[in-house]
Protein backbone atom coordinates (compact mmCIF):
# COMPACT_ATOMS: atom_id res chain seq x y z
CA UNK A 1 0.00 0.00 0.00
CA UNK A 2 1.43 3.34 -0.95
CA UNK A 3 1.35 6.27 1.41
CA UNK A 4 -1.20 8.01 -0.84
CA UNK A 5 -3.78 5.26 -0.34
CA UNK A 6 -3.47 5.39 3.44
CA UNK A 7 -3.42 9.20 3.40
CA UNK A 8 -6.57 9.26 1.31
CA UNK A 9 -8.40 7.08 3.82
CA UNK A 10 -7.06 9.11 6.70
CA UNK A 11 -8.19 12.36 5.09
CA UNK A 12 -11.71 10.95 4.86
CA UNK A 13 -11.55 10.21 8.56
CA UNK A 14 -10.25 13.73 9.16
CA UNK A 15 -13.19 15.17 7.25
CA UNK A 16 -15.65 13.15 9.33
CA UNK A 17 -13.99 14.35 12.51
CA UNK A 18 -14.25 17.91 11.20
CA UNK A 19 -18.03 17.58 11.19
CA UNK A 20 -18.01 16.05 14.65
CA UNK A 21 -15.73 18.63 16.22
CA UNK A 22 -17.70 21.54 14.79
CA UNK A 23 -20.55 20.57 17.11
CA UNK A 24 -18.28 19.73 20.03
CA UNK A 25 -16.28 22.95 20.09
CA UNK A 26 -18.79 24.71 22.33
CA UNK A 27 -18.86 21.79 24.75
CA UNK A 28 -15.10 22.04 25.05
CA UNK A 29 -15.35 25.73 25.90
CA UNK A 30 -17.90 25.08 28.61
CA UNK A 31 -15.96 22.26 30.24
CA UNK A 32 -14.18 22.98 33.48
CA UNK A 33 -10.53 22.59 32.59
CA UNK A 34 -9.16 22.06 36.05
CA UNK A 35 -11.96 19.84 37.35
CA UNK A 36 -11.07 16.67 35.46
CA UNK A 37 -8.37 14.48 36.95
CA UNK A 38 -6.09 12.05 35.17
CA UNK A 39 -5.85 8.38 36.11
CA UNK A 40 -2.38 9.00 37.51
CA UNK A 41 -3.78 11.94 39.46
CA UNK A 42 -6.32 9.63 41.09
CA UNK A 43 -3.58 7.10 41.81
CA UNK A 44 -1.53 9.87 43.40
CA UNK A 45 -4.44 10.71 45.74
CA UNK A 46 -4.82 7.04 46.66
CA UNK A 47 -1.08 6.69 47.33
CA UNK A 48 -1.04 9.77 49.54
CA UNK A 49 -3.85 8.28 51.61
CA UNK A 50 -1.96 4.95 51.83
CA UNK A 51 1.15 6.90 52.89
CA UNK A 52 -0.75 8.64 55.71
CA UNK A 53 -2.19 5.32 56.95
CA UNK A 54 1.22 3.60 56.72
CA UNK A 55 2.95 6.38 58.71
CA UNK A 56 0.23 6.21 61.36
CA UNK A 57 0.61 2.42 61.61
CA UNK A 58 4.42 2.66 61.95
CA UNK A 59 4.15 5.30 64.68
CA UNK A 60 1.43 3.53 66.66
CA UNK A 61 3.21 0.17 66.51
CA UNK A 62 6.57 1.76 67.37
CA UNK A 63 5.05 3.46 70.41
CA UNK A 64 3.35 0.23 71.42
CA UNK A 65 6.61 -1.70 71.18
CA UNK A 66 8.43 0.96 73.23
CA UNK A 67 5.75 0.77 75.90
CA UNK A 68 6.15 -3.03 76.22
CA UNK A 69 9.93 -3.54 76.16
CA UNK A 70 9.81 -5.76 79.24
CA UNK A 71 7.24 -8.17 77.78
CA UNK A 72 9.30 -10.19 75.28
CA UNK A 73 6.39 -11.85 73.46
CA UNK A 74 4.45 -8.60 73.03
CA UNK A 75 7.62 -6.73 72.08
CA UNK A 76 8.54 -9.29 69.41
CA UNK A 77 5.00 -9.29 68.02
CA UNK A 78 4.86 -5.48 67.89
CA UNK A 79 8.30 -5.31 66.26
CA UNK A 80 7.27 -7.85 63.62
CA UNK A 81 4.14 -5.86 62.83
CA UNK A 82 6.12 -2.61 62.82
CA UNK A 83 8.67 -4.09 60.40
CA UNK A 84 5.77 -5.18 58.17
CA UNK A 85 4.30 -1.66 58.32
CA UNK A 86 7.70 -0.08 57.59
CA UNK A 87 8.15 -2.32 54.53
CA UNK A 88 4.69 -1.32 53.27
CA UNK A 89 5.52 2.35 53.90
CA UNK A 90 8.79 2.00 51.94
CA UNK A 91 6.89 0.42 49.03
CA UNK A 92 4.36 3.27 49.08
CA UNK A 93 7.15 5.87 49.09
CA UNK A 94 8.83 4.12 46.13
CA UNK A 95 5.55 4.36 44.19
CA UNK A 96 5.07 8.01 45.09
CA UNK A 97 8.61 8.79 43.90
CA UNK A 98 8.07 6.84 40.65
CA UNK A 99 4.75 8.59 40.09
CA UNK A 100 6.27 12.00 40.81
CA UNK A 101 8.85 11.44 38.07
CA UNK A 102 6.22 10.88 35.37
CA UNK A 103 5.99 13.91 33.12
CA UNK A 104 3.57 13.74 30.20
CA UNK A 105 5.86 16.02 28.21
CA UNK A 106 8.48 13.26 27.94
CA UNK A 107 8.78 10.91 24.96
CA UNK A 108 6.05 8.29 24.73
CA UNK A 109 8.38 5.30 25.23
CA UNK A 110 9.72 6.82 28.47
CA UNK A 111 6.19 7.27 29.82
CA UNK A 112 5.19 3.74 28.82
CA UNK A 113 8.22 2.40 30.70
CA UNK A 114 7.54 4.60 33.73
CA UNK A 115 3.91 3.49 33.89
CA UNK A 116 4.94 -0.16 33.60
CA UNK A 117 7.58 0.24 36.34
CA UNK A 118 4.88 1.73 38.55
CA UNK A 119 2.63 -1.24 37.79
CA UNK A 120 5.49 -3.57 38.74
CA UNK A 121 6.04 -1.75 42.05
CA UNK A 122 2.32 -1.95 42.87
CA UNK A 123 2.12 -5.61 41.92
CA UNK A 124 5.15 -6.47 44.08
CA UNK A 125 3.78 -4.53 47.03
CA UNK A 126 0.38 -6.25 46.84
CA UNK A 127 2.05 -9.65 46.40
CA UNK A 128 4.11 -9.23 49.56
CA UNK A 129 1.21 -7.81 51.57
CA UNK A 130 -0.95 -10.79 50.61
CA UNK A 131 1.84 -13.32 51.11
CA UNK A 132 2.85 -12.08 54.56
CA UNK A 133 -0.62 -11.21 55.90
CA UNK A 134 -1.45 -14.76 57.11
CA UNK A 135 1.89 -14.90 58.92
CA UNK A 136 1.10 -11.62 60.67
CA UNK A 137 -1.99 -13.18 62.24
CA UNK A 138 -0.21 -14.30 65.43
CA UNK A 139 1.59 -10.97 66.10
CA UNK A 140 -1.71 -9.19 65.44
CA UNK A 141 -3.50 -11.48 67.89
CA UNK A 142 -0.90 -10.85 70.61
CA UNK A 143 -0.76 -7.10 70.11
CA UNK A 144 -4.55 -6.82 69.78
CA UNK A 145 -5.28 -8.75 72.97
CA UNK A 146 -2.70 -6.77 74.92
CA UNK A 147 -3.49 -3.37 73.38
CA UNK A 148 -7.29 -3.45 73.27
CA UNK A 149 -8.16 -5.76 76.18
CA UNK A 150 -5.13 -5.46 78.46
CA UNK A 151 -4.78 -9.26 78.49
CA UNK A 152 -1.42 -11.03 78.71
CA UNK A 153 -1.91 -13.43 75.79
CA UNK A 154 0.97 -15.74 76.69
CA UNK A 155 -0.44 -16.33 80.17
CA UNK A 156 -4.07 -16.61 79.02
CA UNK A 157 -3.68 -18.57 75.78
CA UNK A 158 -0.47 -20.49 76.44
CA UNK A 159 2.43 -21.03 74.07
CA UNK A 160 0.91 -24.19 72.56
CA UNK A 161 -2.24 -22.32 71.45
CA UNK A 162 -0.11 -19.50 70.01
CA UNK A 163 2.08 -21.99 68.13
CA UNK A 164 -1.07 -23.65 66.74
CA UNK A 165 -2.24 -20.27 65.48
CA UNK A 166 1.12 -19.68 63.81
CA UNK A 167 0.78 -23.04 62.09
CA UNK A 168 -2.75 -22.11 61.06
CA UNK A 169 -1.41 -18.88 59.48
CA UNK A 170 1.21 -20.86 57.54
CA UNK A 171 -1.47 -23.32 56.38
CA UNK A 172 -3.69 -20.44 55.22
CA UNK A 173 -0.73 -19.02 53.25
CA UNK A 174 0.00 -22.39 51.61
CA UNK A 175 -3.70 -22.80 50.74
CA UNK A 176 -3.91 -19.26 49.36
CA UNK A 177 -0.86 -19.76 47.16
CA UNK A 178 -2.22 -23.07 45.88
CA UNK A 179 -5.63 -21.47 45.14
CA UNK A 180 -3.97 -18.49 43.44
CA UNK A 181 -1.88 -20.72 41.17
CA UNK A 182 -4.85 -22.97 40.47
CA UNK A 183 -7.14 -20.11 39.41
CA UNK A 184 -4.60 -17.65 37.88
CA UNK A 185 -5.74 -16.71 34.41
CA UNK A 186 -9.08 -18.50 34.68
CA UNK A 187 -12.49 -16.89 34.40
CA UNK A 188 -14.30 -15.90 37.56
CA UNK A 189 -15.26 -12.93 39.66
CA UNK A 190 -12.99 -9.89 39.28
CA UNK A 191 -11.81 -10.06 42.92
CA UNK A 192 -10.78 -13.72 42.54
CA UNK A 193 -8.89 -12.99 39.32
CA UNK A 194 -7.09 -10.05 40.96
CA UNK A 195 -6.23 -12.15 44.03
CA UNK A 196 -5.04 -15.14 42.02
CA UNK A 197 -3.04 -13.13 39.47
CA UNK A 198 -1.33 -11.11 42.19
CA UNK A 199 -0.61 -13.86 44.74
CA UNK A 200 0.55 -16.34 42.10
CA UNK A 201 3.05 -13.73 40.85
CA UNK A 202 1.41 -13.62 37.40
CA UNK A 203 0.89 -9.85 37.63
CA UNK A 204 4.56 -9.26 38.55
CA UNK A 205 5.71 -11.51 35.70
CA UNK A 206 3.36 -9.76 33.24
CA UNK A 207 4.69 -6.31 34.19
CA UNK A 208 8.30 -7.56 33.94
CA UNK A 209 7.63 -9.06 30.49
CA UNK A 210 6.02 -5.81 29.37
CA UNK A 211 9.03 -3.80 30.53
CA UNK A 212 11.34 -6.13 28.62
CA UNK A 213 9.13 -5.79 25.53
CA UNK A 214 9.32 -2.00 25.77
CA UNK A 215 13.12 -2.16 25.93
CA UNK A 216 13.16 -4.37 22.83
CA UNK A 217 10.78 -1.96 21.08
CA UNK A 218 13.08 0.94 21.88
CA UNK A 219 16.24 -0.72 20.64
CA UNK A 220 14.95 -2.68 17.64
CA UNK A 221 16.42 -1.22 14.47
CA UNK A 222 16.62 -4.35 12.37
CA UNK A 223 15.19 -4.32 8.86
CA UNK A 224 11.62 -5.50 8.34
CA UNK A 225 11.22 -9.20 7.65
Amino acid at each position, binding site marked *: *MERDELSGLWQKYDAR*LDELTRTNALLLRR*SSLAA*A*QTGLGRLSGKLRLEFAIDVLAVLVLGSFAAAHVREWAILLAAMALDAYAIAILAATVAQLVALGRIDYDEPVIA*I*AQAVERLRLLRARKTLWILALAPLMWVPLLLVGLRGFFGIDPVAVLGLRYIAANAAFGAAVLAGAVWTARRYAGSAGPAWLRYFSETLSGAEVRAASRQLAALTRYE*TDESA*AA
Partner: protein
Amino acid sequence: MVEREDSFVALLTENQKILYKVANAYCRSRADRDDLVAETTAALWKSFERFDQSRRFSTWMYRIALNVAISFSRSERRRSEHRAAVDVGALELPAGEPEPDERLEQLNDFIAALDDLDKALMLLYLDEYGYKNIAAVLGLTETNVATKIGRLKARARVALGLETTPRKGDNDGTR
Protein backbone atom coordinates in the same frame (compact mmCIF):
# COMPACT_ATOMS: atom_id res chain seq x y z
CA MET B 1 -5.07 33.76 33.70
CA VAL B 2 -8.18 34.38 31.58
CA GLU B 3 -5.97 35.28 28.63
CA ARG B 4 -3.99 32.07 29.02
CA GLU B 5 -7.19 30.06 29.28
CA ASP B 6 -8.58 31.71 26.14
CA SER B 7 -5.36 31.03 24.30
CA PHE B 8 -5.41 27.39 25.43
CA VAL B 9 -9.05 26.85 24.46
CA ALA B 10 -8.41 28.41 21.04
CA LEU B 11 -5.41 26.14 20.38
CA LEU B 12 -7.21 23.10 21.73
CA THR B 13 -10.29 23.77 19.62
CA GLU B 14 -8.16 24.20 16.54
CA ASN B 15 -6.44 20.86 17.16
CA GLN B 16 -9.19 18.91 18.90
CA LYS B 17 -9.30 16.26 16.20
CA ILE B 18 -6.14 14.89 17.77
CA LEU B 19 -8.12 14.21 20.95
CA TYR B 20 -10.68 12.16 19.05
CA LYS B 21 -8.17 10.32 16.91
CA VAL B 22 -6.20 9.24 19.96
CA ALA B 23 -9.32 8.39 22.01
CA ASN B 24 -10.81 6.35 19.15
CA ALA B 25 -7.57 4.45 18.70
CA TYR B 26 -7.03 3.63 22.37
CA CYS B 27 -10.52 3.03 23.74
CA ARG B 28 -13.07 0.42 22.79
CA SER B 29 -16.11 1.82 24.56
CA ARG B 30 -17.83 5.19 24.32
CA ALA B 31 -17.57 5.69 28.09
CA ASP B 32 -13.81 5.08 28.05
CA ARG B 33 -13.39 7.46 25.10
CA ASP B 34 -15.26 10.22 26.91
CA ASP B 35 -13.17 9.66 30.03
CA LEU B 36 -9.95 9.72 28.03
CA VAL B 37 -10.86 12.95 26.22
CA ALA B 38 -11.63 14.59 29.59
CA GLU B 39 -8.39 13.29 31.14
CA THR B 40 -6.31 14.40 28.18
CA THR B 41 -7.86 17.87 28.24
CA ALA B 42 -7.06 18.13 31.95
CA ALA B 43 -3.46 16.96 31.42
CA LEU B 44 -2.97 19.39 28.53
CA TRP B 45 -4.25 22.27 30.61
CA LYS B 46 -1.98 21.33 33.53
CA SER B 47 1.05 21.12 31.22
CA PHE B 48 0.17 24.21 29.17
CA GLU B 49 1.96 26.49 31.62
CA ARG B 50 5.25 24.87 30.56
CA PHE B 51 4.44 24.79 26.85
CA ASP B 52 7.22 26.37 24.83
CA GLN B 53 5.53 28.71 22.34
CA SER B 54 8.34 28.16 19.85
CA ARG B 55 7.22 24.53 19.47
CA ARG B 56 4.38 23.37 17.26
CA PHE B 57 1.27 23.05 19.43
CA SER B 58 -0.11 20.04 17.54
CA THR B 59 3.12 18.04 18.03
CA TRP B 60 3.21 18.90 21.74
CA MET B 61 -0.48 18.04 22.03
CA TYR B 62 0.01 14.70 20.27
CA ARG B 63 2.80 13.78 22.69
CA ILE B 64 0.74 14.60 25.78
CA ALA B 65 -2.40 12.95 24.37
CA LEU B 66 -0.52 9.75 23.51
CA ASN B 67 1.12 9.64 26.93
CA VAL B 68 -2.20 10.09 28.72
CA ALA B 69 -3.80 7.45 26.46
CA ILE B 70 -1.04 4.91 27.14
CA SER B 71 -1.22 5.51 30.90
CA PHE B 72 -5.02 5.33 30.68
CA SER B 73 -5.10 2.17 28.61
CA ARG B 74 -2.68 0.39 30.93
CA SER B 75 -4.54 1.38 34.08
CA GLU B 76 -8.01 0.90 32.60
CA ARG B 77 -7.32 -2.35 30.77
CA ARG B 78 -9.17 -4.50 33.30
CA ARG B 79 -12.21 -2.25 33.19
CA SER B 80 -12.29 -2.25 29.39
CA GLU B 81 -11.89 -6.03 29.28
CA HIS B 82 -14.94 -6.34 31.49
CA ARG B 83 -16.91 -3.94 29.33
CA ALA B 84 -15.90 -5.52 26.05
CA ALA B 85 -18.55 -8.20 26.38
CA VAL B 86 -21.35 -5.68 26.36
CA ASP B 87 -19.85 -2.80 24.40
CA VAL B 88 -18.17 -3.87 21.21
CA GLY B 89 -18.73 -0.75 19.11
CA ALA B 90 -15.06 -0.12 18.61
CA LEU B 91 -14.17 3.12 16.88
CA GLU B 92 -17.69 4.07 15.97
CA LEU B 93 -18.31 7.75 15.46
CA PRO B 94 -21.23 9.36 17.29
CA ALA B 95 -24.72 8.84 15.91
CA GLY B 96 -25.76 11.11 13.08
CA GLU B 97 -22.42 10.85 11.33
CA PRO B 98 -22.17 10.10 7.60
CA GLU B 99 -22.46 6.51 6.36
CA PRO B 100 -19.43 4.48 7.43
CA ASP B 101 -16.82 3.78 4.79
CA GLU B 102 -15.93 0.09 4.83
CA ARG B 103 -12.28 0.62 4.00
CA LEU B 104 -11.99 3.35 6.62
CA GLU B 105 -13.59 1.08 9.22
CA GLN B 106 -11.04 -1.58 8.31
CA LEU B 107 -8.23 0.89 8.80
CA ASN B 108 -9.65 1.95 12.17
CA ASP B 109 -10.05 -1.69 13.20
CA PHE B 110 -6.47 -2.33 12.17
CA ILE B 111 -5.25 0.58 14.31
CA ALA B 112 -7.40 -0.51 17.26
CA ALA B 113 -5.80 -3.96 17.19
CA LEU B 114 -2.22 -2.63 17.32
CA ASP B 115 -0.30 -2.48 20.58
CA ASP B 116 -0.07 0.88 22.37
CA LEU B 117 3.21 2.07 20.85
CA ASP B 118 2.44 0.92 17.31
CA LYS B 119 -0.86 2.81 17.54
CA ALA B 120 1.04 5.97 18.43
CA LEU B 121 3.41 5.41 15.54
CA MET B 122 0.62 4.77 13.05
CA LEU B 123 -1.41 7.82 14.12
CA LEU B 124 1.58 10.12 13.74
CA TYR B 125 2.51 8.56 10.40
CA LEU B 126 -1.02 8.90 9.04
CA ASP B 127 -1.14 12.51 10.18
CA GLU B 128 1.94 13.03 8.02
CA TYR B 129 4.50 13.75 10.68
CA GLY B 130 8.03 13.21 9.39
CA TYR B 131 10.22 10.43 10.73
CA LYS B 132 12.29 12.97 12.66
CA ASN B 133 9.23 14.33 14.48
CA ILE B 134 7.82 10.87 15.12
CA ALA B 135 11.16 9.78 16.52
CA ALA B 136 11.23 12.80 18.84
CA VAL B 137 7.66 12.30 20.07
CA LEU B 138 8.13 8.58 20.71
CA GLY B 139 11.73 8.68 21.93
CA LEU B 140 13.05 6.32 19.22
CA THR B 141 15.71 6.68 16.57
CA GLU B 142 14.70 7.60 13.00
CA THR B 143 15.99 4.23 11.79
CA ASN B 144 13.80 2.44 14.30
CA VAL B 145 10.79 4.53 13.25
CA ALA B 146 11.40 3.78 9.57
CA THR B 147 11.71 0.06 10.27
CA LYS B 148 8.54 -0.07 12.31
CA ILE B 149 6.54 1.99 9.82
CA GLY B 150 7.64 -0.35 7.06
CA ARG B 151 6.33 -3.33 9.02
CA LEU B 152 3.10 -1.56 9.92
CA LYS B 153 2.43 -0.67 6.28
CA ALA B 154 2.91 -4.30 5.30
CA ARG B 155 0.51 -5.44 8.01
CA ALA B 156 -1.99 -2.75 7.02
CA ARG B 157 -1.95 -3.98 3.45
CA VAL B 158 -2.82 -7.50 4.59
CA ALA B 159 -5.42 -6.27 7.08
CA LEU B 160 -7.16 -4.20 4.43
CA GLY B 161 -7.27 -7.19 2.13
CA LEU B 162 -4.90 -5.83 -0.48
CA GLU B 163 -2.40 -8.63 -0.07
CA THR B 164 -2.39 -11.97 1.70
CA THR B 165 1.25 -11.78 2.81
CA PRO B 166 3.46 -8.76 3.49
CA ARG B 167 5.78 -7.66 0.66
CA LYS B 168 9.53 -7.48 1.06
CA GLY B 169 11.16 -4.06 1.40
CA ASP B 170 8.28 -2.39 3.21
CA ASN B 171 10.64 -0.64 5.57
CA ASP B 172 11.56 1.99 3.00
CA GLY B 173 11.00 5.39 4.53
CA THR B 174 9.05 7.97 2.60
CA ARG B 175 10.86 10.90 4.10
